[in-house]
């Protein structure tokens, strides 16, 4: 019953999923933090940009964003993220475009989680830091963000789990992650569709469950007691 599973590189496909998720997670964390900084900054134009970006991007379906990265950016506007004469151009380009799309989308959720964390830091702390002569970036970097991060580990874990599952969308532009292999297996193993679904569902549970448990534990450990 399970013997056909050996014909496919399931581990390889999930490895691509992990790479996709890890790179996108790091990117989203960086860009999401910058966006959160913009949203609380004293400069109106930065606040305006941050608010506009978050509210527009998080309301666009992810499928549309990823598809736009491939057909819109790369194919129509010729914005390519890999050297065009490379023999693995399509694979590299699709992968990087997918990461770009995931970062653009997931960072909005990171930003909003982080902003709620910033709101947990008492205003008096920022005021005291300003009174000491620290600049806005210093207040944010030294006083506010470290505390904010510690209080939003759990919501960020939810964002990360959502991101891991969202990577399946990359299959619509041909990134060889788990759900692309699933499409191939459904085409070939039409007599064992339920089994195929189960294997991939289990794979994703194995990826996401430890992330939730681990970060849940970390969240408890590092939370700022007030």
């Amino acid at each position: 019953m399970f013997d056909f599973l050996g014909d496919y590189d399931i581990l390889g496909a999930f490895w691509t999923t992990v790479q996709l998720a890890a790179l996108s997670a790091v990117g989203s964390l960086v860009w999401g933090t910058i966006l959160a900084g913009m949203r609380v900054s004293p400069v109106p134009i930065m606040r305006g940009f941050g608010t506009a970006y978050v509210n527009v991007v998080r309301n666009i379906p992810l499928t549309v964003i990823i598809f736009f990265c491939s057909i819109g950016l790369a194919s129509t506007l010729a914005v390519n993220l890999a050297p065009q004469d490379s023999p693995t151009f399509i694979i590299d380009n699709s992968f990087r475009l997918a990461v770009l799309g995931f970062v653009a989308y997931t960072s909005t959720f990171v930003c909003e989680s982080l902003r709620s964390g910033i709101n947990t830091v008492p205003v008096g702390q920022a005021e005291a830091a300003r009174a000491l002569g620290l600049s806005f970036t210093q207040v944010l970097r030294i006083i506010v963000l470290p505390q904010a991060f510690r209080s939003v580990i759990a919501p960020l874990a939810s964002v990360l789990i959502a991101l891991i599952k969202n990577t399946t969308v990359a299959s619509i532009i041909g990134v060889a992650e788990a759900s692309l292999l699933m499409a191939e297996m459904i085409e070939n193993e039409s007599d064992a569709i339920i089994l195929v679904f189960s294997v991939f569902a289990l794979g994703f549970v194995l990826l996401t469950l430890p992330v939730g448990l681990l970060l849940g534990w970390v969240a408890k450990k590092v939370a700022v007691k007030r």
Partner: protein
Amino acid sequence: MSAVVAVAGLTLAACGGGGESGSKNLVARAKDDKKITIGIKFDQPGLGLQTQSGKPEGFDVDVAKYIAKELGVEESGITWKEAQSAERENLIEKGDVDFIVATYSITDKRKEKVAFAGPYFVAGQGLLVRADNTDITGNTALNGKKLCSVKGSTPAQKIKDEFSKEAQLQEYGKYSDCITALENGSIDAVTTDDVILAGFAAKSPGKFKLVGEAFSKENYGVGLKKDDAESRTAIANAITKMQTDGAWKKSLETNVGPSGYKIPEPSPLTEK
């Protein structure tokens, strides 16, 4: 809506329920009720396409209508249902459709679950390029070229297995996405069954052309419930009749002919 039906279909199939609508077979039901449900593709120009007016058109649709008529059902008695590639076996087993005419290749694996009548058409994997392209002449000239096909599909797998070193493969969710990429030049060729490509080429005349010899054979059959031998024979007879009385050729000429696709002679039926 169709997605909901599909999901429900998969869930039900998981419970092992093969919901039978009465014990009558397809031929008897068509005769008594004058109604029939047929699965087709909704997104393949020239073969099975849902038009703006809601009326489907294409070669597969013509074959389906012809068979229905032979079974005693008029066009008004036909309910069309979208049959996406991954769902076809389930739709048949559950009895959601009476039969499927949707570029459905006859394979041994599928024969374990459903029965086929046909082939009503034999297609081969082909290449579609822009009309002004001169350097792709066939499947031997694919070195360093960028091909496009639908994710997970058999043609895409064939390219990966046989040409992936020399050619790069872009996979998209739908054929129409590949056609867009081909049109704006980021892809050199689209590959899948030649008759599907001909359908797309016929839809936008002058833009694309088919090149090269077909490099595989796909036998399109009409899929129906396994164990319904009487209906299978009836459908096979309808196909043979359509091929001999000229309706078959005429439908192909209107639907895929404008692309310059060479209409083949009908091949003998193996499943009947």
